[in-house]
Structures are given as C-alpha cells and as structure tokens.
C-alpha cells in the first residue's frame, strides 16, 4: 500500500483507501487502524485539503524540509477522513489558521522519484 501511495505521488496524485464503514484513510494503510479490518478500494483525494492542526516554525532546523519559516501541519485532503503530517508554506504565521484550505504543490514531473520529497509543500489555496 505504501508502494501504491508513493507511485501515485510520483504521478502527482494523492490516494487514500477505504477502511471500516467507508472511512477514507490517508496516507493509505493495509489495515484500518481502529478496527484492524483489511482496507479495500483506493480513492483519489485532494489536492485541495484542510489544515486540522499546525505549529509555526520561525527558525527552521537544518534537517527540516524548508529553509525559511513555515508551518508543520496535519493535513486532511478533500475526500479523506484522516490527516497526514506535512508542511505548509504560508509565508507568515498570520496566514495560518486551523481549518484553512491548502493545496498540494509537487516537484516538476521529471524530478519526482516516488518519495515524500515529491511533495514540496502545501500552500494556502488562494495563493495558488
């Protein structure tokens, strides 16, 4: 399932999978983390998404994905019922809010390798 998720990332696509009761789990897993039932049915989600929580980093560490101030965030793409950890490149903390709409930005297609690095960041929807 991880392979499918990463292959889709290389195609510039976000996918989730249906868990118990039709809940869409993102990133996709083989099993529903609440019920341990096997998941079934890949669905496309995003690229539009909602920030469900965030923390503003004014001084990025050297290992962080962005070198300028940004937000770590839990991001729930449209069509998904769970969230994924990623970063929001919002410019300033005042642009951040829980519930704000963001969208995924990918690296150019020829630079994508099928890893988290294919996803550069999420940006506020109006900025795209």
């Amino acid at each position, binding site marked *: 399932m991880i*392979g499918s998720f990463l*292959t889709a990332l*290389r195609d510039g696509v976000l996918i989730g999978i249906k868990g118990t009761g039709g809940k869409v789990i993102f990133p996709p897993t083989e099993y529903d983390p609440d019920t341990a039932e096997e998941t079934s049915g*890949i669905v496309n989600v995003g690229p539009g998404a909602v920030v469900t929580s965030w923390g503003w980093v004014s001084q990025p560490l050297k290992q962080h994905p962005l070198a300028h101030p940004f937000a770590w965030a839990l991001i729930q793409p449209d069509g998904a019922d769970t969230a994924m950890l990623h970063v929001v490149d919002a410019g300033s903390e005042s642009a951040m809010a829980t519930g704000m709409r963001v969208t995924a930005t990918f690296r150019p297609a020829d630079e994508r390798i099928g890893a988290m690095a294919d996803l550069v960041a999420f940006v506020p929807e109006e900025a795209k």
Partner: protein
Amino acid sequence: MSDQTYVTSDPRGSITKLDTPSRLEYFFTAGTSLSKNLRGYQRGQFIGQRCPVCSKVYVPSRGSCPVDGVALTEEVELKNTGTVTTFCVVNVPFAGQSIKIPYIAGQILLDGANLSFMGLIQECELEEVRMGMRVEAVWVDKADLVPSLASVKYFRPTGEPDAAYETYQEYL
C-alpha cells in the same frame, strides 16, 4: 486503477522500495573508570581496577565488578606481559579491515589481570601461535601514544616457556 493497487502509466513501473537515509552522531562517555584505563594507554601503561570484594582485576573496566556489582576504586598498574588464552587466524577479508590478512587475533590475559581482551599478535609465524603462549605488548612510539588501545601496536612472543593450562583455563 485496480481496487487494491494503484496502477501507473509511468514506464518506470510501481515503486517497490524507498531509501530513507539516516545518520546519528554520538558523544561517548567513557566514565571515570574507563577514563583511567584510556589515560594509561596515553602513558604507555595498562591500568586496571581491583574489585574490593573478590579482588579480581579488570582491564578494561566499565566501573563495576560484573560479579559483585560494586564500584571499582583501587587502581592497578599491570605488567607489559601476558598469556594467549585462545586465538584465531583471520583469513577472511571484511569491510573496514586495517590489517593485511592472514593475521592472528588473540585473547590476551595480562599478568595480574582477571579479564582478557583481544589483541593483534605479530612477529609470530601463523603455525607457531598457541594457547598458553607468553606474549608482551609492543607500544607505538612515545610521540604517537593516544588514549586508546591503538597505542598498543601488537603483542609478540616473549620466548618464555608456555603458561600452564590451569593458570588461564578460567578465562576461556
């Protein structure tokens, strides 16, 4: 797209593996006891420590007697000579190997010590090394002494008669 697997039209096919490089760097705390041992190497000496309960001498030591579980407080300077308790001849190349194969790796029990450690044995024909063989440490030049076992270049035979098996059988 199938139900369970994402299908790509990318000629590279599906992703089946992923590299996640990771690197961790650490400080090492030798501790009070091992520091004394390491400082000893810097002076060209083997420094061990004696257990106040069982009187065994450990070189090197992590600071406690592994039998009695008490702190080792008494410092003991050991001689330069010892006995090969057991050995092997290394013929296998491996990553990071710094010595030309074949060579002899021996467990050395220094005279007066109750713990053996591994040492390189040189100036000795491969077929002549044996259990009980008496050896002495050959140190690097004074200017090259460092606080580690790297200060000992190797051990070599002293030519003395072999030690009796009973003197080292406890350490095998």
